[in-house]
């Protein structure tokens, strides 16, 4: 089932992740195998609690897998690396720093001189449309703006891999479409490897060249759907029959799983 790619950038090798929940073992991921090629854009969809975030955190080096491993560029992941940028489901902005200082955070850790740092931050703030709010504190931003700030912060350190956990979940439909287009535009220019988790079937089809549908209890990959629409993706593609057909397939894979119980918690 898994597509074997020669130059895999991220490879999940029989990844098992168990958590202890009030004394009892809980299997969040039950043997995940997946290869994501260098420069590929993959989306991951599935019911709530199926382990999407867990999978992403494992790739980010924030978890200690129970068994199996994640390999990035032929090296086993054993901790976070600035090569891998992460955008968390919760925005995770530092509330005591201004928007600009949040974006500069990673650059400062790299000991980059202030002038250079500022130029890069300004570039990405402009990209996500937050230039006017550079000096604002996170508490003064709307949910969508916070998310855009988190995106700018992740982009700023120029990671080769972007792991995005429902980054557009808090955005209104209009901003969401705009951000999707912008993300693809940046991706076309800079070709990072992207693993993008979402709840939204439309979004998963529009962005990816491959959709990974997951199932819950235990968390596992249920189906992979190739999206052979050409890039750049356009608005008219969204309305095409081909898009509708793919969308229906993904929908089927997510909402009509043999033993899916959906989010019953």
């Amino acid at each position, binding site marked *: 089932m898994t597509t074997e790619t020669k130059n895999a950038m991220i490879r999940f090798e029989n990844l098992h992740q168990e958590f202890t929940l009030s004394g009892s073992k809980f299997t969040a991921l039950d043997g995940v195998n997946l290869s994501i090629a260098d420069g590929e854009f993959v989306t991951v969809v599935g019911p709530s609690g199926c382990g999407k975030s867990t999978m992403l*955190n494992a790739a*980010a*080096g*924030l978890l200690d897998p129970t068994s199996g491993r994640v390999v990035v560029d032929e090296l086993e992941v054993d*901790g*976070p*690396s*600035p090569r*891998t*940028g*992460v955008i*968390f489901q*919760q925005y*995770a*902005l*530092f*509330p*005591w*720093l201004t928007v600009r200082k949040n974006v500069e*955070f*990673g650059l400062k*850790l*790299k000991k980059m001189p202030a002038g250079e740092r500022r130029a890069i931050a300004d570039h990405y703030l402009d990209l996500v449309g937050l230039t006017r709010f550079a000096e604002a*504190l*996170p*508490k*003064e931003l709307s949910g969508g703006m916070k998310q855009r700030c988190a995106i700018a*912060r992740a982009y700023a*350190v120029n990671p080769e891999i972007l792991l995005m956990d429902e980054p557009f979940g808090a955005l209104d439909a209009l901003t969401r479409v705009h951000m999707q287009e912008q993300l693809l535009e940046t991706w076309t220019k800079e070709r990072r490897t992207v693993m993008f988790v979402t709840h939204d079937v439309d979004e998963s089809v529009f962005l990816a060249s491959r959709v990974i549908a997951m199932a819950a209890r235990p968390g596992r990959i249920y189906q992979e759907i190739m999206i052979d629409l050409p890039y750049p993706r356009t608005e008219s593609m969204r309305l095409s029959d081909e898009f509708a057909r793919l969308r229906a397939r993904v929908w089927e894979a997510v909402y009509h799983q043999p033993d899916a119980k959906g989010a019953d918690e």
Partner: protein
Amino acid sequence: MAPKNPPTAADTSLVPGGGGVSTEAPENSPPRKPRNGGNRKFSRKVMLSINLASVAAGIIGWWLVSAIGIQGLPGPVEVIERGGELMANGTLAEDSGASLARVLTGFALGTLLAIPVGFLMGWYTVARGIIEPYVQFFRTIPPLAIIPLAIVTMGIGEVPKVFVIFLAAFLSCVISTFQGVVGVENTLINAARVLGAKSFTVFIRVVVPASSPFILVGMRIGLGAAWATVVAAELIAAPNGLGFRMQQAQLYYDLPTIFVSLIAIGILGLIMDRLLLMIEARLTRWQERR
């Protein structure tokens, strides 16, 4: 689940922006929703005039009660006169200075130790296991109850008094620093790690700022506890100080002096609290207020 807003101080009036006659009305966030009914709609000026009127009424009430002639109760005029005398001959300044010196020494030592210990407890599970039983145990003993022991073991000099104040300040501050560190959201720590921060950097750049509101609230509670303790400690054994002055006055049935001392204690306590509140408001401006 993680407490986003600090602090779980028992006294809600100590929580930033939470009730009380807080002067910390949010400056940079417009009052979008009226919070406590219509009360919030009063402007600062109106509120202040209400406060002043209330205080004036209280003083008039006091004056009336004393004018009726309740046994030995001094009136405001008498107390103000005595205050003037004590100020003129320097006693009031000396006493206040002595009490303040004890409080500030004990408080400074207490918080200086409490902050690193609280961090240690929050960051290292082993340290927590070692320290927590002591902190929890001593917390249940009122600092004043330590005084007899302190006097027996440390003599009647300044040391036992400063020690008791130190203990009072330390215990309140250590708990809230610890809670602050434990409450730091994991996602913030992870966010720093994926941007390349190693554990020391995470500590300095994330844990310290994220827990600072808790530390500051702990300091305010600690200062309150220290101030309450010093006066009581001076009642028991001291050569000077506001508590000592009251103790002396009690021997001579000198109610005006007791009143002057009580008012001085109240005013000084209020000033110290407001100062810390101002510092706190400045340092935690970034916080999301409910």
